[in-house]
């Protein structure tokens, strides 16, 4: 090195000595390179002149310079670099991406420099996290943004997620944010509860495409995502008007860069198992012991009495083996579980020249569920192309197609107790999986309550396949009309087709047995066309900076559903591919078209580059609104003050960035399901006149005054940066008030109507958010971290239903046997607080029962409840609030380490203070012992042997069906969300990059929750039934090994 320097100096001296004038012009050659390889089209400019050139395809350039010149190298997305020429003939540079580059974030209908933001916008760049396989958008966002809560409705592979930004604003309307994918808006509404399905209620016999539907954004390959912006406050979301109240998630896919083509191949294999297997149920011997006690208590002969087994009416063997001879029996949970293997392969390509850039991918995912007979396969393709047609005209076309086949086990949520997981929790361990002749051990001869539903048979015998085709094309033409003024017009075509194929085997499923095989095909089609045109203007005149956007948008969506069914098949051979060999069920069709027409705009005005003002808004006209309220207006205003530009702050020499933000605005929620404003007839059937005749009766009353929900949000924030961007801190406080809640108001059924939609009541959400980032160590070992903390307090301010300040609800699908409400809306409380009886141990003597308020059915050893109103009776009036699902605060903490070729990422997430209503525990502690029960119930009350026992004695079922506080638990948890360890091979000859890694998702969870999974949310997107656990498939932990190759 030193020798080289000396040689160079010698050389230079020699040159000098050869009398070449120092100022003489000559040619310098070189290469512009980066960590990503050579940069074609990079600018090489002589500083202070207009002379310059661009690099060729291999990043090489030639330029004539004077030795006194300085060359500036620039390339979009990289730091500029200036190099004095001096006497060099060759100048090779390596451009870096770095912190001093002003970060650009995507906002509605445009982009902004992060420092110019006035609203609350969080940005997640996938760079760094796209090297590990992400299965969904929800997974990318989990724990990374303050105030964004993500929950999975089920551990089913491919099932949807529910995202709440700053709490839920709506009771029955949709609370999911609006997703905008490359400009195309998507509402993620699984429609199962609350906001009634846009396609109407599912048919009870045929089921529908709503039975465990695949996630709404499954068609989007996470590997294609370049950045995700989360717009949280009204200033940021008002431009989305009547769809902005729940926040907006803008997803931008990767675009090509002007450089040589690059091919990326990624492959991984993952292994999924249950996060928590430590929930113990009784084994066969224990169950039989308790069952005998129960039978004795009921005055019946004990079932397990040692007599020879007998043959029941349908071949099921009625077992009488003495408990002590039964042993462990069947562990049904193990019987339905498997290690799910996931394979993920993806091929990405990107590149471009001056006129055309492109990026695209082909992805293949094969994911096995952790429960037997479930899984999915998905193919995603994408091609994003941008072409410069004229110097002033750019065309962009983003095209994506996805094909997904999933085989879903029927989960508990929509279908009562029919899913294999729910069955596994209930089926008694005495029964074997297979009977003596090797057939699945089932018995459907009795009423539902007494059938033997073998969970393995349920998993094998119910086919619930979904095939989803999704197509989205966004085409955009952008013309630069004048300097600073451009006009862009976009058109989007979105088409989604979902076909559900369901079949209930006639021999091994309960439904199939009672119908001779039941087959259903449900097809759902959604087609949407969107056109948007908007003009953008950017100008800086002296101390004034203006950027503005104004435009209009028109969208039409047609939704169609077809349900067909048949039953009574001669055999199961053709399952549901031969409807003609069974008896048809009356088919159902449904079709509706909705329109949305909008005008929107935003003005950003900057004074002195210190004071920033933003005004934005939208006018929406929607066919979903009532005839009398067709148009809605949503304005917002924001102000930000860049304190770091003020002398008095600069003198402090503490902050290198400091900005105060304040915003206020109005946004809406228009997720009224279709057809709520007009009265409609319901089509029914009545078998008269020799066949099944069609009938019609008033079905809904309609409401022509129905309008959007209005959310007024105030946001106050501060952004600070320290030590040259090494540490950043953002604080936000917000207060949201949502009124005109779209409530599905129950009306007295004696009116002949059950429900109507109305705008009533008010909800508030108030919270505090902290986000920080730090580069802790920046040497050979690099360590950077980011974290967030958020609180959100949600309150039902008013029900708006007259004097009633409480509305009792009931979790759907819970059998009528359960007494009480379970869940209620109470003014002043979190919407959907748990509501039930207060448990007070068990009755220990008849005298105690006689002397106190008791249920009329109370017996010694049965459950005792508190007589809260002191009227000497246990009635509905003794129900009270027994739990609150809303967490006190949430935490997210991400750490990235790198050292030489190694990188390590660790991400933790915590949720604190929310309750879980474990209704499943109630089912699994039932002393009637029709089902298997939890091992904890062995601590049952016995006046002699266990007078302190807290569980009801076997057979003493009084109160066992009362919704009660003993099923409510603290749901706080900390989860090691993600750990990923990788190694990047460097200086490889043939290939540009090679990375191997191991990635672990959900490896450890710290919680006191006694159920399977503290993240449980059986009712998915519902804002009324939150954090309830009813036999929902828990989430899984996954270990993935993978390889990425760059060519």
């Amino acid at each position: 090195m030193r020798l080289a320097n000396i040689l160079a100096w010698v050389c230079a001296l020699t040159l000098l000595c050869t009398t070449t004038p120092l100022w003489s012009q000559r040619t310098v050659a070189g290469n512009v390179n980066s960590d990503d390889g050579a940069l074609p089209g990079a600018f090489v400019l002589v500083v202070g002149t207009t002379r310059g050139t661009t690099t060729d395809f291999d990043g090489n350039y030639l330029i004539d310079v004077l030795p006194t010149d300085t060359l500036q190298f620039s390339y979009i997305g990289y730091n500029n670099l200036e190099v004095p020429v001096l006497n060099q003939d060759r100048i090779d540079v390596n451009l870096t991406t770095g912190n001093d580059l002003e970060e650009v974030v995507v906002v509605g209908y445009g982009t902004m420099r992060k420092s110019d933001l006035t609203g609350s916008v969080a940005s997640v760049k996938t760079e760094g996290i796209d090297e590990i396989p992400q299965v969904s958008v929800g997974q990318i966002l989990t724990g990374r943004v303050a105030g964004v809560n993500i929950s999975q409705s089920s551990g089913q592979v491919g099932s949807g997620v529910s995202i709440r930004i700053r709490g839920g604003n709506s009771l029955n309307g949709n609370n999911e944010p609006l997703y905008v994918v490359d400009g195309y808006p998507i509402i993620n509404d699984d429609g199962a509860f609350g906001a009634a399905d846009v396609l109407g209620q599912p048919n009870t016999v045929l089921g529908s495409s709503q039975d465990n539907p695949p996630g709404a954004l499954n068609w989007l390959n996470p590997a294609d995502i370049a950045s995700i912006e989360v717009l949280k406050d009204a200033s940021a979301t008002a431009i989305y008007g009547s769809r902005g109240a729940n926040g907006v998630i803008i997803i931008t896919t990767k675009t090509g860069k002007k450089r040589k083509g690059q091919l990326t191949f990624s492959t991984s294999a993952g292994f999924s198992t249950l996060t928590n297997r430590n929930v113990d149920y009784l084994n066969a011997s224990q169950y039989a012991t308790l069952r005998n006690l129960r039978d004795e208590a009921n005055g019946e002969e004990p079932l397990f009495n040692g007599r020879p087994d007998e043959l029941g009416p349908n071949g099921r063997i009625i077992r009488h083996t003495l408990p002590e001879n039964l042993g462990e029996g069947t562990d049904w949970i193990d019987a339905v579980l498997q290690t799910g293997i996931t394979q993920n392969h993806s091929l990405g390509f990107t590149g471009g020249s001056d006129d055309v850039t492109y990026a695209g991918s082909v992805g293949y995912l094969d994911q096995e569920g952790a429960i037997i007979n479930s899984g999915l396969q998905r193919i995603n393709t994408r091609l994003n192309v941008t072409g410069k047609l004229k110097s002033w005209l750019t065309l962009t076309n983003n095209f994506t197609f996805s094909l997904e086949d999933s085989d879903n086990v029927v989960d508990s949520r929509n279908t009562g107790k029919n899913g294999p997981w729910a069955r596994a929790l209930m089926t008694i361990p005495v029964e074997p999986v297979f009977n003596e002749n090797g057939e699945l051990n089932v018995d459907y001869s009795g009423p539902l309550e007494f059938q033997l539903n073998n969970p393995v048979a349920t998993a094998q015998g119910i086919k619930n396949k979904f095939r989803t085709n999704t197509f989205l094309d966004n085409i955009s033409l952008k013309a630069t009309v004048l300097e600073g003024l451009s006009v862009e017009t976009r058109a989007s075509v979105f088409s989604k087709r979902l076909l559900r194929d369901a079949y209930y085997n006639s021999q091994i499923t309960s439904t199939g047995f009672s119908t001779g095989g039941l087959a259903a095909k449900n097809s759902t089609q959604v087609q949407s066309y969107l056109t948007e045109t908007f003009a953008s203007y950017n100008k800086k005149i002296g101390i004034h900076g203006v950027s503005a956007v104004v435009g209009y948008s028109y969208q039409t969506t047609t939704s169609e559903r077809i349900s067909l069914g048949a039953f009574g098949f001669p055999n199961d051979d053709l399952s549901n591919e031969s409807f003609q060999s069974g008896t048809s069920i009356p088919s159902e069709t449904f079709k509706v078209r909705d329109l949305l027409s909008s005008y929107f705009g935003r003005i950003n005005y900057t004074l002195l580059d210190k004071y920033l003002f933003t005004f934005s808004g939208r006018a929406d006209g929607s066919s979903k609104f009532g005839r009398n309220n067709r148009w809605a207006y949503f304005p917002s205003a924001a102000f930000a003050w860049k304190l770091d530009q003020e002398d008095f702050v600069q003198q402090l020499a503490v902050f290198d960035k400091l900005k105060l933000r304040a915003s206020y605005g109005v946004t809406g929620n228009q997720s009224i399901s279709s057809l709520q404003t007009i009265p409609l007839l319901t089509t029914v059937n009545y078998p008269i006149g020799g066949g099944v005749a069609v009938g019609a009766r008033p079905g809904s009353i309609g409401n022509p005054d129905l309008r959007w929900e209005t959310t007024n949000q105030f946001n106050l924030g501060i952004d600070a940066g320290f030590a040259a961007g090494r540490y950043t801190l953002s604080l936000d406080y917000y207060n949201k008030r949502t009124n005109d809640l779209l409530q599905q108001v129950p009306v007295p059924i004696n009116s002949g109507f059950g429900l109507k939609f109305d705008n009533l009541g008010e909800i508030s959400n108030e919270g505090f958010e902290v986000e920080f980032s730090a580069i802790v160590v920046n040497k050979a070992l690099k360590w950077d971290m980011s974290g967030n903390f958020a609180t959100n307090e949600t309150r039902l301010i008013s029900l708006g239903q007259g004097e009633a300040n409480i509305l009792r609800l009931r979790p759907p699908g819970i059998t009528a046997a359960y007494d009480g409400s379970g869940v209620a809306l109470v003014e002043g409380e979190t919407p959907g607080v748990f509501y039930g009886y207060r448990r007070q141990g068990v009755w220990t003597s008849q005298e105690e029962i006689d002397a106190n308020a008791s249920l009329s059915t109370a017996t010694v050893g049965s459950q005792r409840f508190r007589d809260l109103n002191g009227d000497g009776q246990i009635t509905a009036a003794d129900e009270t609030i027994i739990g609150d699902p809303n967490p006190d605060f949430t935490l997210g903490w991400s750490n990235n380490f790198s050292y030489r070729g190694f990188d390590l990422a660790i991400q933790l997430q915590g949720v604190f203070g929310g309750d879980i209503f474990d209704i499943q525990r109630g089912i699994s502690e039932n002393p009637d012992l029709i089902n298997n029960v939890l091992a904890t119930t062995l601590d049952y009350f016995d006046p002699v042997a266990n007078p302190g026992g807290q569980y009801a004695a076997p057979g003493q079922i009084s109160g066992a069906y009362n919704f009660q506080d003993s099923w409510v638990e603290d749901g706080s948890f900390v989860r090691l969300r993600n750990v990923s360890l990788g190694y990047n091979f460097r200086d490889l000859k043939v290939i540009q990059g090679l990375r191997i890694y191991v990635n672990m998702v959900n490896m450890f969870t710290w919680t006191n929750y006694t159920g399977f999974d503290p993240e449980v949310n059986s009712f998915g997107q519902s804002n009324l039934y939150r954090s309830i656990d009813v036999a929902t498939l828990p989430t899984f932990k996954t270990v993935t090994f993978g390889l990425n190759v760059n060519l």
Partner: protein
Amino acid sequence: MNYSIKAFFGALLFLGLTVSCSADLEEEVFSQASPTAYFNSRGDVRTALNGMYDPIQQCCGSYSQGRSFLLNTVIDEGTMLAGNWGNYEKLIYTATSNGEPNNIWASNYLSINAANFVLENEDKIRALDGPAGTFANSALGEAAFLRAVGHFDNVRMWGAVPLRTSVAKTTAELDIPRSTEAEVYAQVLADFTFAAANLPEAPTETGRPSSWSAKAYLAKVHLTLGDFPAAVSFAQDVIDNGPYELVTPFAAVFDVTNENNAEVIFDIQYARVNLEGSRMAQLSTGNNTAFTAFGRGGWGLQIAETQLFEKYLEVDDRRATTFSSLLPHPTNGFYYYGKWRDPQGVSIDGHENNFIVYRFADVLLIHAEALNEVNGPTPQAYAAINQVRTRAGLAGLEAGGSKEQFQDAVLYERHLELALEQHRWFDLKRTGQLKASLIAAGKPWDDRYLLFPIGQQELDISSQLVQNPGY
């Protein structure tokens, strides 16, 4: 160049604006009809009439399950296997745990609302008819008939219930207070009278009511109200001039291959189509009998009380039909229901058995009861009851008993003749025997049992309704 840019810009704006502004923001529904644009054809009328039956027919509202679970078990006829439903026989039902009463309440009101939808569109329906008006008369009569059937059930079970005579269109109309019992009964009588005057003598279609069905109901309503002379006169008219007769043998009344027979005055139609069929066979026949879908046997969920079986004489022809077997079930010793059997059923809710709501034997016994109340046990009264007894293979009652003895005899005969058909609770209440009968059956008694509780949710929702006393 500059020109083309501007032209392009202009074209874009124009295109967008045209699209946006031409938008008519009316939601388009393709697959559901609007009630305001209905009754454009006779087909619409027939469809709307069918809509009245669906709520009370479909599972598991009223006639497919709810009435049977509740009304048979609270008295001394039936019992239930499953724990929770088993509470009804112990008279344990509260406003919150109010499954079957709620179901009955709701399905009756849904049916009433559908009837009101027809009745309030009289003008449109008449416009579809010729000058004679037979089509419209019959349709309106059928709607009035169904409305009365629903209100009649509800007023007997809950007392002073909300009276619904039009489809609610405003929020205020959704929530109305109770009317008095007298007002409800007056409407029930008016509706049945209207139906009797407007329905044809022979039903327009098998399974629909005729004017005779309405007259038979008038006899029953008057009997319930204690207007015995009126009850006598309507029953007399139906017996003398109506098309009905007792079907022989007794088994033929319920034979699934002999539906819509001459004894049926009004029934709910079921077919062997999944969800359009009856569930009664599945619920009530024992689980090794072969009387249900695929011959697999029922669930045995509903059990006939053994003491009911023991009340029948061996010679009583009704015994073999009323129970699914003359021997107790081999493993559990229960007797099961036998009136609803269909081995050719296609699914749980796919049995053919129509549910006979009202049959001619009931009219004969009403006649006997009302005659006795008016003039004591006249020979005519004996003739009426003995007609029923004779069909059952029993000897006729000897004349000469007292009025009270005759009252008891009629009530007892109704018990055996109409067993498990959900009449006895109404009979016991009407005759003031509910308390004595429950106590005799070893059940608890409280005066509140004379009415059922209104569901707590209904009370919570309504600002107008108050609970029945004692609940």
